[in-house]
Every structure is written in C-alpha cells, then in structure tokens.
C-alpha cells in the first residue's frame, strides 16, 4: 500500500546524512566531552562543530547556543530561567494564547509561584497583534514569549514588530521557533529577539535534542543544576550523537531552505485549494497567506478528527488532529479555541504537515482518499443528518 507521511509537524524523518553523521558518535567516538583525555577530545570537537552549525542556521554566535534535550526543555528553560533571573524587576510574564504547552504551562508554573501572567489573544487567523503586546507590558514585566509560528495552523507571527516594542520597553523577548528554525529563514539579529528555542526533530534531525539561543549578556537561571556543561547553563552529560545530528541537520537546512520552501509551498497550496473545492463545509484554519510552507490545516464540519485520522491511517496516510478525542487529555486544541473556532468545529480539525519527501502524487492520493472518508463519517453523524434535515426544511 502507498505510504504517505503528512505529519511532519509531529516529527520529521531523520535525514540519511544526519544519520550517517551520528553513527560514529554511537560507536568509536563515545567519550564524554568533559573528559580531558583523547577520548573526550573527539566528542568535544564534535559538539563544538555542531554548535557552530546551529549558530550559523540562525545567524548567532556559537557561544550563545545551549544544547537541550528538546524544544520543550528549551522553552521551559527560557520562560522560567529568563523570568527568574530578574527578581528585582518584577514578576509579570506575557505570553500569547496559542503558545505550545511547554511555554504556556511553564508560564502557569510561574503563576503558581507568585508571578502574574497575561495571555495575549489572537485574531481569527491566529495572528498576534503587536499592539496587544504593548498594552500587556507593565513596569514589572520580565518576559514576553510569543512563538515565531504556530505549527498547528501554520500562522507566522510578527516577531520583528513585537521585538521593536519589547526593546523600546526594555523587556526580554523569547520566541519559540521550533516550528520555523530549519523550515523558513530564521535570523536572531533580524528578528531582534533575546532568546529563541529550536528542536532537531522539526527539520530532519534526531528526536531528544534541541537548542536554546540566548543573546550574549542576557541572564538566565539554569533549569538543571549539576556539572559545568554548556557553560554552566545546562548541566548533564551531553547527548553527543543527537547533538551531532542536530548540527548536521542545521547545516543541511541552511543550505537547502530556499529549495525546500519552493518544493513545499505549491504542494500545500494544492491541498488548501483542492480539498476546499472537493469537500463541502470545510474551513481552512490559520492565516491565508502568512503561513508556514508545509502546513495545510482544516476543520471539517459535522465529523470528528480522530475518526478521520484513523481511517486515513488505514489508507497509509499519516496526519494529525487538534480534536478533543485525539488529545490524550481529551481537550480540543487551545490554539483553535483561542482563534474563536467553536468547540464543535474544532472537533473536526485535521492537520497535514508536509515534508521534503512529499510529492505531488502524495497530494493526489489525499485528494482521492479523504473525500470518501468524510462522506462515510458524515453518513454516520447525527449532526450531519440534523443539518441535512434543517437544510431541506429551509427550502
């Protein structure tokens, strides 16, 4: 059966060259980078080269890169560590309502320990209005965190404009760039932020590795205490093979980013326009133009996302959904709800996230397989039969 992986927002596959780069570090080059002997030297050289590769991807200096175990860890460290480094300034944190849970829940943890939290609303496209950020900032605001783009609906946020405001107000600004780093051009200097998170498994690197960039001179409290790894900012023996993989993935992305975007955007646009034409009562979520090149997201009315996901999976197609039933916690996506999408419509959420391996034939296959699945589930749906009856009654 045809296998069509369209869930790159969950994780991208490992690039073969990344795998190749990692292998020696799972074999002969096994030393601890902190060791002073020859065994340590090889591992240390490896991670320092990776640090330079990651720095180059985002236009930063090597020494500003802290390797972590995930995008989640980077976000936790940024939100908690940057806020807690400024006890004299205050205890107020500003985040957007559509942040990843690793930002949102970190902020709520701060809230439980006495910080105040302001959540900035988004419009129907999931865009943050920079003026809302300005309004939320107070004298005692220690941190603003707004994501570079939302991987669930694809909307790219006006980070540069927000950074102008935070600089003007003298507030530290962190952006979660997990959905963008390695996917679209990301340059920390152009963005004007103070800290930025990224993750390896979002751009063909390995899982279990991320990085946090913190602008030189910005204080941060470590999340993990222990030895003096990562300049004392992140203790624990480094996950060397994964860091090597992240570095290689960053190098490949840097070289390939324009070609990847050119490949993905037309495939995404085909999904957006042709699925909308083939299926009635389907809504595109996220910003119509200002969106990530690989994200095609929808809400399908009258049916539920998990059942679509499972039936697509049987046909060899992998997608995600923000429906309540799909989430382990049985809550509909906070992103969709924050955009003003009703609970009912959010249940029909479906997310296609494209990757470099996808082809136009993959899109053809989805266009062929999804409409009958939608029909089939609607035939079963009491909401659809009610709708049809009402529609007939109106005529």
């Amino acid at each position, binding site marked *: 059966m045809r296998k069509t992986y369209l869930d790159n927002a969950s994780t991208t596959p490992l690039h073969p060259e990344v795998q190749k780069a990692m292998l020696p570090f799972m074999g002969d080059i096994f030393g601890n980078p902190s060791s002073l002997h020859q065994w340590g030297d090889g591992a240390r050289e490896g991670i320092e080269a990776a640090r330079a590769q990651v720095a180059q991807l985002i236009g930063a200096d090597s020494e500003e890169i802290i390797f972590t175990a995930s995008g989640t860890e980077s976000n936790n460290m940024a939100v908690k560590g940057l806020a807690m480094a400024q006890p004299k300034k205050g205890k107020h944190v500003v985040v957007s309502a559509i942040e990843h849970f690793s930002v949102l829940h970190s902020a709520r943890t701060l809230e439980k320990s006495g910080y105040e939290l302001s959540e900035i609303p988004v419009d129907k496209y999931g865009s943050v209005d920079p003026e809302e950020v300005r309004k939320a900032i107070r004298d005692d605001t220690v941190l603003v965190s707004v994501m570079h783009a939302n991987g669930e609906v694809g909307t790219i946020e006006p980070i540069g404009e927000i950074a102008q405001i935070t600089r003007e107000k003298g507030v530290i600004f962190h952006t979660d760039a997990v959905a963008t780093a390695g996917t679209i051009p990301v340059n920390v200097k152009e963005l004007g932020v103070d800290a930025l998170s990224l993750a390896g498994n979002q751009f063909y690197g390995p899982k279990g590795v991320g990085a946090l960039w913190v602008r030189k001179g910005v204080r941060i409290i470590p999340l993990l205490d222990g030895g003096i790894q990562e300049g004392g900012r992140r203790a624990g023996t480094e996950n060397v093979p994964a860091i090597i993989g992240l570095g290689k993935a960053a190098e490949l992305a840097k070289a390939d980013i324009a070609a990847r975007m050119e490949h993905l955007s037309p495939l995404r646009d085909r999904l957006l326009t042709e699925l909308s034409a083939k299926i009635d009562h389907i809504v595109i979520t996220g910003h119509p133009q200002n969106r990530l090149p690989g994200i095609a997201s929808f809400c399908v009315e009258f049916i539920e996302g998990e059942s679509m996901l499972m039936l697509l999976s049987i046909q060899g197609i992998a997608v995600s959904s923000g429906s309540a039933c799909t989430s382990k*916690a*049985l*809550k509909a996506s906070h992103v969709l709800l924050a955009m003003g999408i009703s609970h009912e419509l959010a249940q029909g959420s479906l997310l296609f996230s494209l990757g470099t391996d996808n082809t136009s034939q993959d899109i053809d296959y989805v266009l062929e397989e999804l409409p009958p699945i939608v029909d089939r589930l609607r035939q079963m749906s009491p909401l659809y039969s009610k709708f049809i009856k009402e529609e007939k009654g109106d005529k």
Partner: protein
Amino acid sequence: MPVYSEKVMDHFTNPRNVGEIENPDGIGEEGNPVCGDMMTFYIKVKDNRLEDVKFKTFGCGAAIAVSSIVSEMAMGKTLEEAQKITPSLVAEELDGLPKNKLHCSNLGAQALNMAIQDYLNKGEKTKGKKAVTTESKPGDQHCYCPYCDEEIMDAAAPYCQACKITLSLCPECDKAVSSDDKTCPNCGADIKG
C-alpha cells in the same frame, strides 16, 4: 503498538447497524459535540424485545466502535437484559479501550438506555411500566486529569499529582476540569459564573 484493539478497529471501520429507524419506539441521545462525542440510538420494540437497534454517532473511533457493539449486544434482547449492558461490559466486549476513551463506553450504554427509557415513558400511561436506569458502578468511574491523562487517584482532590495542575470537579458531570476552563471539556456545562 496500536492504540485500539483489533475488535475496536473492526467495529470502527465496519460499524454494524448504522442509521436511523423510521417511526422508532424510542430515541436516546447522549453526549454533545462540544465534548467530542454524540450518539443517537433508535430502537424498535416488539413483545418486550429489541427488534431493531440503529445508531448515528459523531465522534472518535472508540465512540463509533462502542455504538456499533452496543447495538449488536442489544439486538434481540429483552428490555431488561438490554438495560444490564454496562459500560464495563461494553469495554470488555471490545477487548478493552484506552483508559482515556472509557467514557465513550459510558455514552454508548447511556444512549441505549435512554432510548429504552424513552420507549418506557411513552408506554407508561398505558402499560404502567416503570423506567429503570442503569447506574454504573462506582468502580467504573475513573477520573483523569484533563491536562496530562494521568489518573487522579483521589477524585475529590482538586489537584493532579502528575502535572501539578489545579483542578476542580464539574458541578454537572463530576469529572475533573481545569480551574481555568469556562466550559467543562467532558459535558460542555458552563462552569464559571
């Protein structure tokens, strides 16, 4: 490891008794689209037996499989027998459900039971029959944190030990909800205000 048993997948991909019954003897509707699952059961009764059972379901794979198996379990049974179909029997018949999907089995059993009650209520005047509700045993009522899916050991404690989130219990359905929520993710009830 797949999340659903083969039996769940079978009933989900090939659900039995989907549809509506024209002029049914009883209709039962349970759940709501806000929480993600909604089931409507239609029954036809002859000589105190369920002659026909049909359903329509909005929901996940588990909800559809539950509806299908409930319709199959109930078909041909006497009303009293059908009322003994408990959520745990439904889950058992499906070779188990993921723990965060067990509530779907509640919905299925409840929707069927509501259809039977609907029938009994209609006939109450003429036949003088009393409606009986199947109460699910306290053992069936697991409480899960709406954030992290971990079971909350003490359902009365407004706190999830796993993710340290403050919880409260929904006044309507008694399930755990985050204190930040305005609507209950389980039953759609208005919590604040």
